[in-house]
């Protein structure tokens, strides 16, 4: 049923518009949002793999040069897209569920932003058209700013404005890079551009081609929050509501991998492309983890850790072999789940204590045992302790870098994992095990049930991927074999 492919974008988009138009009817909005959110993970699972041409314009063969042209905006749907869209759909469902149970009166515009962001990342994953991706990238940036600005945390407006100002430098630079590619090849379809590069129609050593790489790469740095954008990315995570932050980090990860896969298909022949990606990934790992070690606000700490983990994904893709790219994409999938679990879990602690400073917390294990055990397991999964899912992807990354002849990178990756572990042990001790400070009032405050339910579901997925990594790695490996 290939008709379902465009529905993956259209359903959340239409739901967003309808909810914001009819948000006066509170109960109807709640029911409608819930039903749409349930549909989101089901549609990609029910759909078949295939291509969808908008407007029905099938690819044409130019008889003179015998080159295929794709006149329509093309959506390609394979196993990789299926697993990532199903995961983002599941996450959106859980976040909307947490939001709906938290407030009696729901806000239409906030639900609009959540669904708009989901539609945007889904389109970015599916599309085979670089400008279409850019448009949804801008829509995603607006949705992210809205989610941050809608939160009730202090200084969220300032952070949203900072993100927007930086974004209005990053996005036009990326547009300029797309313009350079358009000037070289006369097309915005990635398959056409890649074919032109690989057939030698474009001079891969010309300065224009290299410039387009640099400009799109800068836009990618902004989209994925690698240095120099790691401070703003961790900042917007810490200023959004916990469930919003869980969704924001998944938007970041998915926009990162969708842009980098497009860049990989176009620029894989240039050795400097891989050098750039590995350089910025290593910088992100070092800076993210070392700054996370010195934070006292635990939301900010998770934000920096999330940025540091992004370095692993970049590392896997930068090494450029089939095995390493598989490992990087598997790490991306794991990070979406684990970081969402951490944000929601620490958000539950904020709900129960109204405190974000680790120095003023303590002794929470006796009051919230379920949350603390689940947070501990999630932290261990992020640090890469067997048999959890983070272990499998990090082991694959270490093996991949060893087999590429870069033992330094494997040592670095193991060191970053150990430092992540230290961050968790330190935070877990100060928040849960240390004696309770006298001025901390914990009586009569409960963690919302919906949050515990959400964490349990995410934890099941973490353990499942940890025990049976072959569920996804074999499919991703097939996909990677197709683009190499």
């Amino acid at each position: 049923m290939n008709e379902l492919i465009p529905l993956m974008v259209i359903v959340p988009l239409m739901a967003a518009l309808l909810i914001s138009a009819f948000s006066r009817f509170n109960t109807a909005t709640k029911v409608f949002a819930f039903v749409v959110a349930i549909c989101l993970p089901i549609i990609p699972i029910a759909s078949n793999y295939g291509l969808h041409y908008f407007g029905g314009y099938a690819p044409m063969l130019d008889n003179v040069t015998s080159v295929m042209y794709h006149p329509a905006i093309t959506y390609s749907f394979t196993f990789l897209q299926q697993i990532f869209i199903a995961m983002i759909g599941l996450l959106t469902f859980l976040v909307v569920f947490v939001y709906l149970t938290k407030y009696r009166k729901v806000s239409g515009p906030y639900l609009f932003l959540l669904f708009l962001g989901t539609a945007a990342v889904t389109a970015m994953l599916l599309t085979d058209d670089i400008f279409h991706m850019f448009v949804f990238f801008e829509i995603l940036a607006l949705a992210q700013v809205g989610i941050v600005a809608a939160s009730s945390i202090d200084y969220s407006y300032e952070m949203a404005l900072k993100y927007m100002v930086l974004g209005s430098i990053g996005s036009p630079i990326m547009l300029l890079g797309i313009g350079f590619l358009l000037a070289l090849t006369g097309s915005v379809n990635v398959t056409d551009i890649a074919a032109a590069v690989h057939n030698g129609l474009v001079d891969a050593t010309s300065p224009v081609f290299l410039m387009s790489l640099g400009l799109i790469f800068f836009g990618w740095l902004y989209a994925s929050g690698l240095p120099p954008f790691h401070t703003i990315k961790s900042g917007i995570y810490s200023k959004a509501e916990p469930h919003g932050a869980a969704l924001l980090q998944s938007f970041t990860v998915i926009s990162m991998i969708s842009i980098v896969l497009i860049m990989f298909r176009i620029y894989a022949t240039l050795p400097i492309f891989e050098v750039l990606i590995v350089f910025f990934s290593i910088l992100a790992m070092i800076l993210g983890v070392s700054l996370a070690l010195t934070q006292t606000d635990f939301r900010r700490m998770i934000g920096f850790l999330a940025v540091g983990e992004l370095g692993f994904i970049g590392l896997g893709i930068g090494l450029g072999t089939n095995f390493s790219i598989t490992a990087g994409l598997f790490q991306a999938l794991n990070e979406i789940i684990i970081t969402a679990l951490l944000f929601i879990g620490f958000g539950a602690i904020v709900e129960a204590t109204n405190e974000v400073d680790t120095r003023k917390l303590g002794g929470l294990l006796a009051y919230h045992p379920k949350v603390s055990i689940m947070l501990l397991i999630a932290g261990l999964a992020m640090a890469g302790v067997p048999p959890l899912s983070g272990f499998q992807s990090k082991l694959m990354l270490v093996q991949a870098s060893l087999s590429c002849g870069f033992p330094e990178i494997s040592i670095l990756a193991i060191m970053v994992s150990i430092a992540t572990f230290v961050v968790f042990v330190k935070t877990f001790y100060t928040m849960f095990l240390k004696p309770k400070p006298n001025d901390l009032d914990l009586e009569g405050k409960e963690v919302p049930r919906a949050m515990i339910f959400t964490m349990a579901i995410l934890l099941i997925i973490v353990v499942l991927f940890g025990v049976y990594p072959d569920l996804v790695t074999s499919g991703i490996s097939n996909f990677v074999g197709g683009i190499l």
Partner: protein
Amino acid sequence: MAQTQLAILLTSVALIVIGLYSAIFIDNIIKKIIGISFIEEGANLFIVAIGYKAGGVVPILMPGMDTSWFATNAAYPLPFGLVLTSIVIGASTLAVMLALVMVLYRRYGTLSTKVMLSDTAKQEEYNE
């Protein structure tokens, strides 16, 4: 008419450089936003210049035109379609930024970036 294209490219480079300069050196947040929006305009101008064909015609097929003559002489319309989207995105981004500035002015009473958008920890001390 290669001179036209060269002049256009220089203009777009100048707009982008003005935008990047204003991003670093201008303190007033509204002027900074105006300056940054010039980057977007420069990128738009560059992409339109890609589709331009010296001595060509507007890419609209009028009745009575010869199709093969039109195909060789019309400008390339794909970049124009992209720029249309991009202009609207730029305007909406600008509107959101100005709205946030209006909200923040009520809290700080100044438009200076150094006060309004400095480090969060310093702002906490400033407000206390």
